[in-house]
């Protein structure tokens, strides 16, 4: 092999190595470079770890009652103290967090996805598709979400939480889908969408490849807000006695109970409230960094 051949091969290998990374990899890379995103992600992971692995460390389960200790402050026996009923605060709080985390994250992701798809289809196709989708959106907007959730609450008992998540998500997407629809209408006129159209790319593919990614900043922010909204809706439902049904607990029902005793037994309130705040904060941090990671025009994260 002559030197020039070697060089050529080297060059070619160099070029072949420059495989343009997929969009997902690029976004993941940018996300991991942002300090904020890493902190948020670590916090969220920690919350999950605590919620799912934590209960195994404690001695008590959430259904246990310690009849020797009612409303006791934190001690070696009961790490975070006990409730009026004698339940271990550590155990019930973590149990509640399991529910809240899953409900919040799932409802938010489902709600935002629904919003993006419905809005983008309505805005892209216009005509009949738009009219019927807008009609459904408007209908959902005027339905009293809280009341319906309250009425349906008996259905959510006995481990039917996926249904609860679904119904919750169904009431989260309308406003965003309206924003997405109007953004799609203006995005549709942009030249790169026209270019794809004239290339012969199918409309559905244009929506998923060009329209929705170009709104990912909005969607990331929206999903973040929805996480908080879903957790808080679930919390407030539970506060009024709907939503998660006893003996199961959620952060909401715990906060509702804890609020009554918060003044003279702060441990009944502050642990669950604090964890809720940390969770929402972590989700917000992740959402912010995701938004920056999706947007190539944003200042390079970590630079």
């Amino acid at each position: 092999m002559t030197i020039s051949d070697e060089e050529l091969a080297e060059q070619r290998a160099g070029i072949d190595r420059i495989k343009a990374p997929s969009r997902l990899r690029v976004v993941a890379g940018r996300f991991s470079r942002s300090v904020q995103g890493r902190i948020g992600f670590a916090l969220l992971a920690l919350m999950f770890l605590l919620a799912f692995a934590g209960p195994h460390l404690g001695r008590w389960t959430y259904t246990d009652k310690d009849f020797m200790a009612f409303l006791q402050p934190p001690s070696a026996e009961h790490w975070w103290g006990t409730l009026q009923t004698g339940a271990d605060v550590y155990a019930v709080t973590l149990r509640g967090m399991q529910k809240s985390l899953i409900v919040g994250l799932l409802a938010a992701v489902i709600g935002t996805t629904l919003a993006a798809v419905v809005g983008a289809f309505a805005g892209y196709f216009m005509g009949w598709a738009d009219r019927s989708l807008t009609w459904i959106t408007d209908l959902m907007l005027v339905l009293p979400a809280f009341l319906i959730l309250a009425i349906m609450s008996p259905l959510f008992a006995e481990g039917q939480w996926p249904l609860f998540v679904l119904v919750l998500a169904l009431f989260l997407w309308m406003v965003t889908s309206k924003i997405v629809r109007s953004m799609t209408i203006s995005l549709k006129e942009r030249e790169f969408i026209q270019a794809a159209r004239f290339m012969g790319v199918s409309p559905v593919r244009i929506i998923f490849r060009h329209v929705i990614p170009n709104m990912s900043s909005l969607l990331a922010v929206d999903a973040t807000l929805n996480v908080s909204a879903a957790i808080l809706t679930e919390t407030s439902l539970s506060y009024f006695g709907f939503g998660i049904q006893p003996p199961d607990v959620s952060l909401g029902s715990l906060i509702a109970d804890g609020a009554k005793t918060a003044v003279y037994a702060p441990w009944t309130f502050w642990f669950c409230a604090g964890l809720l705040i940390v969770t929402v904060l972590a989700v917000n941090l992740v959402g912010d960094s995701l938004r920056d990671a999706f947007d190539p025009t944003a200042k390079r994260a970590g630079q």
Partner: protein
Amino acid sequence: MRECDERQAGTGARPGASGRADLADPVLEVTDLDVTFGSGPEAVRAVRGVSYALRPGEVLGIVGESGSGKSVTSLAVMGLLPPHARVTGSVRLRGQEILGATEKTLTAFRGKTISMVFQDPLSALTPVYRVGDQIAEAVRIHQKVTGQQAARRAVELLDLVGIPNAAQRAKAFPHEFSGGMRQRAVIAMAIANDPDVILCDEPTTALDVTIQAQVLEVLKRAQRETGAAIVLITHDLGVVAGSVDRVLVMYAGRPVEVGSVDDVYYRVRMPYTMGLLASIPRLDRGGGQPLVPIEGNPPSPSALPPGCPFEPRCPIAVPACAEAEPALEPVGSPGHLAACVRAGEIEAEGWSPAQVYHAGTGGPDERGPGTPPVHLRPVRLPRDERDVVLEVKDLTKHHPLMKGAIFRRRIGTVHAVDGISFDIRRMETLGLVGESGCGKTTTLMEILELTRPQHGTIAVLGHDTAGLNARERMAIRRDMQVVFQDPLASLDPRMTVYDIVAEPLRTHGIRDPGPRIRELIRLVGLDAAHAARYPQDFSGGQRQRIGIARALALEPRLLVLDEPVSALDVSIQAGVINLLEDLKNRLGLSYLFVAHDLAVVRHIADRVAVMYLGKIAEIGQVGQVYDAPMHPYTQALLSAIPLPDPGKERSRRRILLEGDLPSPASPPSGCRFRTRCPKFKTLDETDQARCVNEEPRVRRLGEDHGVSCHFAEKLDVV
């Protein structure tokens, strides 16, 4: 035009040449102006040591590409820069220092002694106030007059800038004005208080050529009436050539050549100016010769090279260039300064721009693929023997004008395209030109949609679009691709270059697009290593190359180009034009080239079709149409284009069209051009009646030359 210049020189209101202007004290004196944004290593030195003196009545042209600091200079003079900009140096207005003056002092000067005309006339007017009131407001700020007097003065001013029916139009809102009229209104505001200096920042860039000619004329009239000195900031060397006394060329925030307009155009001493002059496609020169692009891109203002900022792109750079930045020093005739270490050599040897750019250090063979050394026009079969790639017959597109929310009823029709016919053969470029609103984009979209047109037929590669099913349409999409005007808008900002170029390949079912993508990226003169970047990491010219690579991915036979170079700087534009020309010859492509710039079309097209209000006014071989235009509209259009040649520009006869394009919702009867036609006015009544009643069809005159005018005759206008 020359006449009025002479009249002016005679009355002494406006010194015609810089020599005479030296006698008066400068009205505006800018010395060592520096503008820096930010601080530390990231600081952007947008303007570095700009000095100029403006004498009363003088017109100074500041020329430069985007990012050269020309607009920042004028904003700094006006004191309009944001607070975080650090401005040093001195700006003296009638001997008084205004740099760093209090806001109150500045306000007293602004509008009264020094006023400004911005590029975008729509954003320069408040949309919710009547035009007359806005001008009256400008009057009342600096003059103690009653509201009525101010309103009267506003009407006078509108009349002065040539707005017909001024008293009535003063009551209109800005959105009711056309672009040209808005710019006139802005000029009226600028001269409302008889300023001594008017700064015009790209006053005609957003306007059509015929309107540009009108506005330049208005500026001249305004200058004559007020005796003000004008600073005309533009990127267009043509605009400068015809309307200024002195020119200041800026590059990377610095003036690199200053001198009288003749000195700068005919006795160029700075390679950058030479490059600018050599890279403009010219109306008065036919195609065949490749344009000379300036290699590379302007340096980033935050990372300037230590030596001459033009050194990396300069074809005659020597090691001394990289050492220190050359000072602006006198060369040759008085008042002519250039910042080049080899200016003396250029002077002594008498090098012309063409010589400098062919004597490149690397020699022609080492240039990139985007700049072929010589254009070898391939031997082509005669036109009749080549296949027809695109045939458009009687294409019509009418949009209904609807009114009412519940009972929508049709109240009119917009005649966007009204029966146009043309064809494109293999390896041929048809230029479709016309002013904005003439229907050229609609035509293009109708062709690209590949559906049955409202009326008439479109046949792409022999297939009539009316009878296509989805599969056949997809097959044709493969053979017909499009390149859009704005390279940034036409590339998905969320996709890497690799994904962008891969999209057409994947859509048409090609599994492993990798090798093809690398080939394409290299074909358009980019580095394959750039594939992983995003569009915004590239400069304008490079982005357009990506757009071209994407369009070429499927080896199409017909490329539809929608103003592909109008968003690019002159020096970059030349490279893209050369690339397109080269690709056409190498790959046997056919182009439908839509543009408003007739000089570019002359350079690249084989045939040209001139559109006016949805109709074709003139169509034919480029040489014939440009050298002997027969239709009065083509003649006016060609004569309105400024040439980058002061001598020719002064001796040219310019046909100024009156008014604006009529609304396509109610086109004039008979010949659509008759309302603005200079020829119509010279006809007798019976002939005029013919123009009003009978719509002219495109008649064949000459071998490949069609004109839709009853009274077509040749006129030499370039």
